């Protein structure tokens, strides 16, 4: 099998992608193309009283404006029983971000301006966000389905076997409720589309990121009342799918409608924020699971009563409901199962699909209980799983017929490779290993159309082949893999095969790249096509040459007719003429019972196991994944590089799911809609991954292969959670396991007591009183006041640019005029800020190259750093690092290299404070003034201040601020009237804004050099380069070995960097005792006066930890 397996073909699109020549929808343009902008609902639930588009339609460049009135056909989505969504809201909006109207105009700015000018009158309705609340009789009703309770989209009851008897007989049972929120696919390329309607030809052409051109064509034809033949989806490169581009993403329908209305091509590209707000997500779930086992450990029964959060509309919800059953009934040998599963509507973004269709979370619940049972039974977790593992020949309670199954081999392999026995028997402190397995019934009857695949294969005159598939390769190496099946069957070089994907005219129908179906289904179709082609070639050559068809062999990139004659494919094509065949594969098994779900769901079942090793930092709550071993029964390895890619990518997504990814909502509005705040793993957060593949040679799979796309992520979350339990003894019942949650759990487990002494800051009484009143009427009142009376902040979509040649020029440009001016150097805070509505200048004045603002000067008694010196200049300056190591340490940990290369010292100090409510342009105190509330009081406050908060709780996260405060720096500022110096202690107001006036410019920072001082900067961030959760700048001064001075400045825990004066005094009072124990006691004083919010108590532990670490390092630096 020389064309599949280990050292195989590189990705077919490699050259195009690595040179930047690949064309994605983002890059695609057509002559005369218009831009589309979508107006979205600001309310989670409201009646649309009126929409007035008159003003918008008259604005410059506008070619079409559409609302729900013009789009009166529902999407087909999950079938007529579930179809509940129109291209635009009609009469009611049901989630923040729902599409209300859209504009096509000559430029994106014109389209956005016109969309903003559409006047919508809403009558706000009571919203519901939580699945339990949505089921209450008092809940507002989003949808009422026949025969179902309000807000229930689907209710499935099923029992296979007698669970009551099983539970009665059980020797042991385990029960738990597992809850998780919403994660987002986060493809690097956001959803985008170019649609063009040709009214003469009555034809719609579409280029879009979609995993299923088949369904896009079907949906677009449906909503535009066209025949499918009138709609064509074209091939284009796609920047990631993972389910986030499955079926027909909403922008596609809107672009098509706009194009028809405008008579021109229309392009829509979702911004990253829009992608988070309106791109379909994974589904949140609550599962109450019970497992009953016999004395020997056999699983007698499982019961799973669960709620799946549908969001506002039904898309892939039913598949998620089904996925819960599929794992609960079939992972390991199970006796009987009982389910009660409800799909529940809430006023949040509609759930779609994301890798695994909920399996990672389901398996987390199942595997947590397997671990708990292993413990009760006194068995090793892997040994137990091997005892209860699925076996070939099993028929499961759901009727799955297991054919090939390498689960036991997978478990044994991961056990060996992770060093399980040793690590379980002799765990290092705060380290643990955990294991989990998976079953993926991916090749099932997935759609109303069944499950079939078609692939066409063409031999061209030049002897090259063209393989055409309607499935979309979003980066999965699908095209390469399919070509390999052809190459293997015909024994020819993969490079001789070109692949066309997606094109609904030029490729035969296939249902799309989802549910890990392509390798199995389209692979089989590719083999079928190859066989058909071979048959045709044989027949023709046999006739032409008068030889026996059986004597013709397909080998060595051609055909061997006899011992002396080998023809190349070019020669063959000359003889046969061009040939084209259609390969087909159909899943030929009866579908499961549509009512009960019982039956052999899939042609084959993929199995696998993963073991994870983690290390927990008990002081910061940080969970680090040290290693993941993944062994997968893939049936047959077609392309090992591709498989590795799928495994690695899925595992790292699983790490994100387990530890940090979570869409955070405030009153129905997602607030972490950026890649800073929605934390996907970056390169420092990956882990050592070891993969192994078991080949069970599935008799029904093409060349024996099974599916591979989603198998990688299925067990990861569970393996990590089980490893965390081994390391800490804590079993989490919610995800993700953030440092905040870990610390809360550790605090409870260890009964930690930390003295906060909130009375040491008298103002806390007022703050605490206000916070107490927020949920008792104060917040809604202030919210209403704020929305009504605060002046909305100005926003700009265009601004001017000027450059300041020197300081005098800059000051001149800063003189008050009617133009709002903003200085920028790196622009890394200002430019995103303008786009978020935080700043609204008419002109930005670039001071990145202004004379007089640069330079690093190191003298005996002081260091002078120019305001516009970049962070990279700081980190790369060897002499500066020797003179002020703590400062350079701080700079090292700021953001990313790209940011540090342009961001400046003064810019870092001047950046806005951190708050995702503020950055979401909510009318909060900071945005709207005194009549407005602080959203952090009742909202998700995990990143907010624990110290010094007043009307605003956003913390200062500029790393250089506490670093420079500890160093006793002074900021040199020049204004209209002259120069002045601001000590760092006076640089920020109590609320965190700087005391630099709008007509002043920071010129330099001066830092005194103190002989025999040691200084460090310690930072805890969940991801390297992220904003700090807590940080401390420390400078200790010495005479000999005696401590004579201490400065401790805290970062990210208060609106401005605070000097920890109690701790400093305590340290100095310690005299000669600077032991670790003493330092720990001193560090605990930094939180005196703290008043944590609901979600940020973790910062108490974190700031104590970083302070103690900083003090120890500064102490030890005395004698390195």
């Amino acid at each position, binding site marked *: 099998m020389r064309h599949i397996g280990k050292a195989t073909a590189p990705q077919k*699109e490699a050259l195009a992608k690595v*040179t930047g020549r690949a064309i994605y929808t983002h890059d695609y343009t057509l002559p005369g193309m218009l831009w589309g902008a979508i107006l979205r609902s600001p309310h989670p639930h409201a009646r649309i009283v009126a929409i007035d588009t008159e003003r918008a339609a008259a604005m410059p460049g506008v070619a079409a404006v559409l609302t729900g009135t013009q789009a009166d056909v529902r999407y087909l989505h999950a079938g007529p029983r579930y179809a509940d969504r129109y291209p635009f809201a009609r009469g009611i909006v049901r989630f923040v971000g729902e599409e209300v109207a859209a504009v096509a105009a000559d430029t994106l700015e014109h389209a956005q301006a016109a969309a903003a000018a559409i006047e919508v009158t809403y009558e706000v309705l009571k919203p519901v966000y939580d699945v339990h609340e949505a089921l209450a009789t008092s809940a507002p009703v989003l949808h009422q389905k026949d025969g179902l309770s309000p807000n229930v989209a689907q209710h499935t009851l099923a029992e296979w076997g007698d669970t009551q008897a099983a539970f009665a007989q059980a020797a042991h049972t385990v029960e738990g409720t597992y809850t998780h929120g919403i994660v987002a696919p986060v493809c690097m390329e956001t959803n985008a589309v170019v649609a063009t309607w040709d009214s003469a030809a009555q034809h719609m052409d579409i280029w879009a990121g979609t995993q299923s051109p088949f369904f896009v064509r079907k949906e677009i034809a449906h909503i535009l009342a066209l025949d499918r033949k009138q709609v064509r989806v074209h091939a284009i490169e796609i920047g*990631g799918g993972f389910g986030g581009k499955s079926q027909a993403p909403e922008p596609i329908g809107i672009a098509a409608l706009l194009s028809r209305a405008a008579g021109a091509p229309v392009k829509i590209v979702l911004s990253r924020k829009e992608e988070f707000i309106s791109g379909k997500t994974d589904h949140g779930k609550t599962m109450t699971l019970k497992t009953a086992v016999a004395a020997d450990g056999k699983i007698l029964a499982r019961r799973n009563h669960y709620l799946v959060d549908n969001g506002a509309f039904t898309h892939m919800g039913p598949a998620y409901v089904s996925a819960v059953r599929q794992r609960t009934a079939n992972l390991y040998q199970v006796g009987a199962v009982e389910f009660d599963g409800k799909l529940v509507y809430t006023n949040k973004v509609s759930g779609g699909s994301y890798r695994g269709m909920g399996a990672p979370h389901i398996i987390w619940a199942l595997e947590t209980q397997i671990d708990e049972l292993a413990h009760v039974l006194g068995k090793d977790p892997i040994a137990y799983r091997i005892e209860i593992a699925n076996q070939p020949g099993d028929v499961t309670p759901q009727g799955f017929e297991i054919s090939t199954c390498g689960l036991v081999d997978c478990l044994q392999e991961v056990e060996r490779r992770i060093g399980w026995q040793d690590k379980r028997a002799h765990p290092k402190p705060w380290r643990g290993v955990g294991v989990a397995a998976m079953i993926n019934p991916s090749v099932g009857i997935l759609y109303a159309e069944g499950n079939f695949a078609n692939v066409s294969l063409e031999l061209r005159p030049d002897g090259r082949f063209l393989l055409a598939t309607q499935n979309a390769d979003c980066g999965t190496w699908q095209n390469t893999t399919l070509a390999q099946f052809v190459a293997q069957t015909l024994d020819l070089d993969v490079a001789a095969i070109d692949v066309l994907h997606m094109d609904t005219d030029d490729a035969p129908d296939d249902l799309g790249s989802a549910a890990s179906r392509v390798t199995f289904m389209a692979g089989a179709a590719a083999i079928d096509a190859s066989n058909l082609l071979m048959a045709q070639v044989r027949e023709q050559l046999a006739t032409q040459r008068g030889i026996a068809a059986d004597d013709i062999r397909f080998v060595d990139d051609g055909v061997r007719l006899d011992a002396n004659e080998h023809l190349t494919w070019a020669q063959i094509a000359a003889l046969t003429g061009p040939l084209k065949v259609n390969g087909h594969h159909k899943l030929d098994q009866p579908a499961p019972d549509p009512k009960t779900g019982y039956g052999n769901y899939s042609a084959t079942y993929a199995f696998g196991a993963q073991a994870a090793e983690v290390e927990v930092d008990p002081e910061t709550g940080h969970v680090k994944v040290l290693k993941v071993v993944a062994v997968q029964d893939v049936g047959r390895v077609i392309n090992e590089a591709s498989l590795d890619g799928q495994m690695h*990518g*899925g595992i790292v997504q699983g790490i994100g799911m387990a530890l940090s990814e979570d869409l955070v909502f405030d009153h129905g509005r997602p607030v972490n809609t950026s890649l800073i705040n929605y934390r996907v793993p970056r390169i420092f957060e990956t882990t050592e991954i070891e993969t192994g593949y078991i080949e069970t040679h599935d008799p029904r799979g093409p060349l024996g292969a099974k599916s591979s796309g989603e198998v990688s992520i299925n067990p990861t979350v569970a393996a990590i959670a089980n490893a965390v339990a081994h390391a800490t003894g804590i079993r989490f019942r919610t995800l993700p396991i953030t440092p905040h949650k870990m610390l809360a759990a550790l605090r409870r487990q260890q009964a930690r007591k930390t003295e906060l002494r909130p009375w040491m800051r008298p103002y806390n009484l007022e703050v605490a009183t206000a916070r107490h009143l927020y949920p008792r009427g104060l917040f809604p009142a202030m919210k209403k006041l704020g929305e009504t009376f605060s002046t909305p902040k100005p926003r700009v979509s265009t601004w001017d640019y000027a450059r300041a040649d020197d300081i005098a020029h800059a000051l001149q440009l800063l003189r008050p005029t009617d133009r709002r001016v903003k200085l920028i150097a790196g622009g890394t805070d200002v430019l995103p800020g303008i786009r978020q509505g935080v700043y609204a200048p008419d002109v930005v004045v670039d001071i990145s190259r202004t004379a007089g603002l640069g330079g690093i000067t190191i003298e005996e008694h002081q260091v002078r750093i120019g305001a516009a010196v970049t962070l990279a200049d700081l980190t790369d300056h060897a002499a500066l690092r020797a003179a002020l190591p703590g400062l350079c340490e701080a700079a090292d940990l700021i953001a990313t*290299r790209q940011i540090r290369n342009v961001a400046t010292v003064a810019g870092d100090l001047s950046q806005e404070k951190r708050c995702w409510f503020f950055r979401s342009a909510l009318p909060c105190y900071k945005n709207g003034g005194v009549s407005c509330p602080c959203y952090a009081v009742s909202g998700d406050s995990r990143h907010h201040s624990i110290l010094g908060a007043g009307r605003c709780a956003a913390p200062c996260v500029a790393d250089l601020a506490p670093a420079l405060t500890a160093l006793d720096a002074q900021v040199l500022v020049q204004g209209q009237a002259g120069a002045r110096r601001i000590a760092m202690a006076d640089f920020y107001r109590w609320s965190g804004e700087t005391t630099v006036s709008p007509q002043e410019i920071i010129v330099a920072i001066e830092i005194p050099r103190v002989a025999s001082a040691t200084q460090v900067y310690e930072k805890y961030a969940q991801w390297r380069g992220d904003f700090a959760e807590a940080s401390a700048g420390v400078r200790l001064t010495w005479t000999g070995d005696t401590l004579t001075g201490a400065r401790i400045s805290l970062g990210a825990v208060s609106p401005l960097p605070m000097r920890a004066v109690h701790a400093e005094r305590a340290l100095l009072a310690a005299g000669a005792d600077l032991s670790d124990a003493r330092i720990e006691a001193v560090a605990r004083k930094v939180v005196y006066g703290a008043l944590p919010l609901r979600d940020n108590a973790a910062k108490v532990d974190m700031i104590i930890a970083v302070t103690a670490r900083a003090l120890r390092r500064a102490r030890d630096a005395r004698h390195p």
Partner: protein
Amino acid sequence: MSLVPREIRLMVNGNTYPVQARGCDSLAQVLRDALNLTGTKVGCNAGECGACTVLLDDRAVCACLVPAMRAEGAQIRTIESQAEDGGTLSAIQQALIDHGAFQCGFCTPGVVMSLSALFAQCPSPTEHAIRVALQGNVCRCSGYSKIIEAANALAQRAAT
């Protein structure tokens, strides 16, 4: 408030181009829309993902955060500059292919540019330095392992 664009001259990949730009236009927009150099991708428009990484005077920067007008006078290099005119790929590009270090490819131009800045500064970087250089490049497909493998291989080769 609408602005009148003015002509600026940008030095991109060794050539100088006159382009029309407004003060609010980013370098990423101008490269893609005015110069049709669509190899530089926009993933977030906020400097958070690194898909738009280009070199500005040999330093890796997010083009979405560089005002086009700032870039006047600077040497800009994009992904389109990496392969030679004859088509020979750079060592970095070839290494990424050889190690299967990308899938959807959307982050890849940015990764290439970040690595190109790194290797120009330091021909044999440590793995830590490689990670520091790539910390601003988000990849959702690959899990990063193969990217690190490719860069390590290049670093080893340069060391020997």
